[in-house]
């Protein structure tokens, strides 16, 4: 039973992708297959979460090799939450791309790639083996490479070349870290490593060095402060369906891996690494939000905000108390949903008005009041206005910071929230509130825009579906925060209770 539960979130997207390849020349069949696979994935991961929530951490050994020798799949609450939120995002994205992505890209393997990307994310979150983690990361990266360059416009190629270069280097660094871990401790199974580093007779002098390799590699992948420059240079170049998926998810998988390895394996000599992580977190927040303030493109503002929000997630790791980690987990889930939703909204705006530039847009509020409302809800949630989901994440992080007496980082995070509101207000003013700027020479007020054809209107309505769905989810998380807060609290306890993890994985 455990076996099936753990393997289903990997098998469904894999089989879906393979089936899609069989229907290469029939995009319509691909759409149906990927929708079904994605629906199955959402229900499978929801069931996995419910099961883990009631039965505790579960594991399975691939090929029935006993624990430290074979590849282990482990699901605790944190990984289940990651898998579930990524599958929900995947579902929303596939529904969006039915209308929001051009036919040419859909014909050239978009759907199988998205499913394989899901497979990579699921694998990276569920694996209990370091080298296997690397392999899943490579899988999801190569899918990202292809998705970013799919279509081959000039901007995309340029973004792709930066993305590919920096990620190949990051993967090499990760591989080196894994090599150092194996060379010093002689194992790759995360549970065995966790018990090895805590044994007094183990020589742990080199383990911190390996930890720095991991910090660097996952730092590049999750775009933290000195290593984030590739992100705003590449994330806005592909079409919105792709950049919403990649921008909403991939960096968070990096944060997930960072949290996982630093709570499980590199949880020794923390007095060295935690101040460094704290410093990184603070700078990431500030630089990201300042970068966003300077931008004049809807997607680029959002891209820089990804960087800024990563700082909050890393901040929870840096404080390293149960409440702080719970805050991080809550924040990751909230951010995956909100960020993707904001990207999708920018896509809906651009589909109607043909631009992402703040200077060219305007008057959206008059034409699409519902969309404006959806944007406001998401933007408030991102900035952390009380009833919305972002508030709870920031509240937990700030409270944990006060408890741990890290006042500087709390002050920084609160100030950054203010700047986030500033950025969101800028988008609101420029895109939704101000009058639509007159096109060169033509008096063109918002009321005289060319009427939409009936087909275009249904297209646009269908594009609203995922946006409304995600907004409802965000509202649900915000208004009924109790559930997710207690879930992430227990997930954080599981993270810090390494003996439980070790016991579950290494037991027969």
């Amino acid at each position, binding site marked *: 039973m455990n076996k099936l539960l753990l393997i289903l979130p990997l098998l469904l997207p894999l089989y879906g992708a393979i089936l899609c390849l069989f229907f290469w020349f029939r995009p319509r069949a691909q759409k149906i297959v990927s929708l079904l696979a994605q629906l199955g994935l959402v229900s499978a991961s929801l069931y996995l979460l419910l099961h883990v929530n009631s039965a505790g951490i579960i594991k399975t050994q691939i090929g029935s090799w006993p624990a430290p020798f074979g590849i282990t799949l482990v699901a605790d609450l944190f990984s289940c939450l990651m898998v579930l939120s990524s599958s929900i995002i995947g579902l929303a994205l596939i529904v969006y791309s039915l209308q929001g992505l051009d036919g040419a890209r859909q014909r050239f393997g978009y759907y199988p790639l998205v499913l394989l990307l899901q497979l990579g994310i699921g694998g990276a979150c569920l694996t209990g083996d370091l080298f296997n983690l690397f392999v899943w990361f490579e899988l999801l990266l190569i899918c990202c490479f292809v998705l970013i360059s799919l279509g081959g416009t000039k901007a995309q190629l340029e973004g792709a070349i930066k993305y590919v*270069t920096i990620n190949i*280097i990051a993967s090499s660094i990760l591989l080196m870290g894994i*090599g150092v871990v194996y060379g010093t401790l002689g194992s790759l199974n995360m549970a065995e490593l966790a018990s090895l580093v805590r044994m007094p007779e183990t020589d742990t002098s080199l383990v911190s060095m390996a930890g720095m390799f991991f910090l660097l590699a996952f730092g590049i992948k999750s775009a933290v402060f000195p290593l984030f420059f590739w992100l705003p240079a590449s994330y806005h170049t592909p079409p919105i369906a792709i950049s919403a998926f990649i921008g909403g998810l991939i960096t968070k998988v990096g944060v997930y891996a960072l949290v996982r390895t630093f709570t499980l394996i590199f949880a020794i000599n923390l007095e060295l690494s935690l101040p460094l992580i704290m410093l990184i977190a603070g700078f990431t927040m500030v630089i990201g939000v300042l970068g966003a303030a300077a*931008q004049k493109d809807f997607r680029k503002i959002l891209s820089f905000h990804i960087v800024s929000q990563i700082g909050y997630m890393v901040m929870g790791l840096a404080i390293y108390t149960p409440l702080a980690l719970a805050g991080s987990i809550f924040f990751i889930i909230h951010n995956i949903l909100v960020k993707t939703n904001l990207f999708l909204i920018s896509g809906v705006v651009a589909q109607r008005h043909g631009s992402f530039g703040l200077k060219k847009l305007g008057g959206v509020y008059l034409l699409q009041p519902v969309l404006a409302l959806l944007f406001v809800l998401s933007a408030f949630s991102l900035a952390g206005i009380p009833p919305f989901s972002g508030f709870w994440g920031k509240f937990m992080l700030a409270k944990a910071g006060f408890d741990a007496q890290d006042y500087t980082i709390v002050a920084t995070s609160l100030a950054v929230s203010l700047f986030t509101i500033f950025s969101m207000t800028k988008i609101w003013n420029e895109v939704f509130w101000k009058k639509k700027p007159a096109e060169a020479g033509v008096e063109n007020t918002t009321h005289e825009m060319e009427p939409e054809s009936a087909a275009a209107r249904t297209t646009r309505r269908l594009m609203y579906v995922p946006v409304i769905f995600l907004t409802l989810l965000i509202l649900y998380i915000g208004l009924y925060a109790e559930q997710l807060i207690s879930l992430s609290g227990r997930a954080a306890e599981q993270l810090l209770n390494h003996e439980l993890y070790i016991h579950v994985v290494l037991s027969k």
Partner: protein
Amino acid sequence: MEVLLCFVVGILFSVGLYFILHRHFFKLILGLMLFGLATNLFIFVIGRLTRGGSPIIAETSEVALEPFADPVPQALLLTAIVIGFGIQAFAIVLIRRVHQSFGTTDLDDLDTTEKIETPEKPEFE
């Protein structure tokens, strides 16, 4: 032998990084490849070198004869080489496409996404 290999790995890393920082596309590809090779060699060396002892267990005994070479780093290495091969192939094709559509071999010319928000035609004309 290990000392010599350490220096080889170091040199490969530095040459790889130098090429990656170079402006020319071709040097970038070379650099990425050398960097990947250096990583593979690094894993090989850090997994400890044991010469002449294969980890095959004889039929008559229960355990392998000490000293034997650890097979795991070599298995990791093989996987890493295969993955690296695929990714390098993709990178080569990507760079070729970039060269085709930009008509340049200089990475410094790839700066259009930084100014993507500028309108296609000047506003005041």
